[in-house]
């Protein structure tokens, strides 16, 4: 059993495990709505657009997390605004916004002459997570779970029947902005675990896995969280023993879970209950 316990004696690994757990809970539960409301592309876009925020904060010696937060929330607002207008198709508008912002981030990085300081933003660096980072992660995770619990009936209704929601005076827009805001917060903490490039996988893959296994919403969220936590632990051990990228290990573990669920569903030939 030493191989299981040894890594946990390492304080860096303890912090990493706590961070991955918090991130997994937030992204996996929120991810269920991302998948059901077909916002996967938005999740990917949000994680990429926070890059210029981080770089600008770095260049001005501001707090990087605050830079990421500001960029994420501005993007969430921008996406909400674009999708209300409908002069452009939503996915086109998001595609333009997100590649443009990401390019701005890369351009700003290239002015610093070195990409080395930013590899942890691009690819994640969970071992560099500090105690105060953990506090922020816990706050975001708590907020996500609280909102999903308190507004469950409104989130559910606006997801499958926005017309009825509007007819009873419940503005679907408000819920959408709320979800985008939560998504921005979650992505900001996700970037510390998996980096800009892979964060959307944490939102999408566990939730998509769960959606193959059940068609009950609460069970879907619980399963999604279970997949994320299992993948976080498996990724941590893989990374510890084989000295490979942690973010990539976690994402690949999620992908394997998805593959297993897909195979199980295909073999049984029916959607579970």
């Amino acid at each position, binding site marked *: 059993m030493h191989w299981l316990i040894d890594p946990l004696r390492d304080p860096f690994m303890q912090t990493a495990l706590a961070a991955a757990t918090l991130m997994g809970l937030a992204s996996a539960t929120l991810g269920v709505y991302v998948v*059901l409301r077909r916002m996967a592309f938005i999740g990917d876009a949000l994680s990429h657009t926070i890059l210029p925020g981080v770089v600008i904060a770095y260049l001005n010696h501001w707090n990087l997390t605050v830079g990421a937060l500001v960029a994420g929330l501005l993007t969430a607002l921008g996406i909400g605004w674009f999708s209300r207008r*409908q002069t452009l198709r939503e996915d086109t508008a998001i595609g333009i916004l997100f590649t443009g912002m990401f390019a701005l981030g890369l351009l700003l990085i290239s002015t610093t002459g070195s990409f080395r300081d930013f590899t942890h933003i691009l690819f994640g660096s969970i071992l560099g997570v500090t105690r105060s980072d953990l506090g922020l992660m816990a706050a975001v995770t708590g907020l996500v779970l609280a909102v999903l619990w*308190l*507004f469950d*009936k*409104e989130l*559910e*209704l606006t*997801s*499958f*029947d926005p*017309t*009825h929601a*509007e*007819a*009873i*005076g*419940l*503005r679907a827009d408000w819920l959408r902005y709320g979800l985008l805001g939560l998504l921005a917060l979650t992505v900001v903490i996700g970037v510390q675990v998996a980096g800009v490039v892979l964060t959307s996988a944490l939102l999408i893959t566990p939730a998509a896995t769960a*959606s193959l296994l*059940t*068609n*009950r*919403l609460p069970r*879907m969220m619980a399963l999604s969280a279970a997949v994320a936590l299992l993948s976080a632990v498996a990724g941590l051990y893989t990374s510890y023993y084989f000295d490979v990228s942690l973010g990539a290990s976690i994402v690949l573990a999620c992908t394997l879970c998805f593959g297993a669920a897909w195979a199980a569903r295909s073999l049984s030939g029916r959607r579970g209950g």
Partner: protein
Amino acid sequence: MSEVILPYSRHNHADPVSGAPALAVRIERALYPGTAEPALRDITLTVPVGTRVALVGPNGAGKSTLLKASAGLLPVQSGTIRLYGRPVGDCRHRVAYLPQRSDLDWRFPADVRRLVMTGRYVHLGWLRRPSRQDWALVDQTMDALGIAHLAARQIGELSGGQQQRALLARALAQEADLLLLDEPLNAVDADTRAVIARVLSDLRQAGKTVVAATHDLGRLETDFDGALYLCEGSEVAAPPGSFTGLRLGQERPESEHSH
């Protein structure tokens, strides 16, 4: 009467103006956001409390659009809509809207009982959970429409007729006084047709007001008290020999135009 109405909250309605009709429409122009061509023009309709009125016309005539505007789902650029003498939005709990089935995402992981329960949400508002009475009413309504045995099914597993009954159950569970029904009989099986016809006559017994879009001309006389004929977004005269019933107020007082 400076009471503030906050939609989807505990202060979500005002009392009806006494003597006012359930629905009074005077539309000069209404259009979908982002389009130039009006979807509705020059429509006058008065639906007295306790009557059943059919909106009749071919596809694209504006029946659904008129119902949407009455439910507050479409802004009216020029003209007014009054529900119980009040502007749209002042008494949402009193008005139930039955959408077309294509308006919902049926693949969403919700069961039938939950879908019917969403009819109670207008009375609940933020943060309040359904009470035992709410659930009892939902179960009772599903039973009356013959879908109680489907309660735990995911909504996408139902047939078209069963989906239509579930949506009607939701509209009934709202305990509204005015029901706006968009093609309730569209593409449903004979059993569902019979169930819905029974519900319509029960609603009449209960003194409820019904406005329904339909293109089934055969049952107008038995199921409805009056009919409004529409074509290309405008009111048209009833075809010769067809049912008209109640006078719904086509003659427009010239002095009351509002711009």
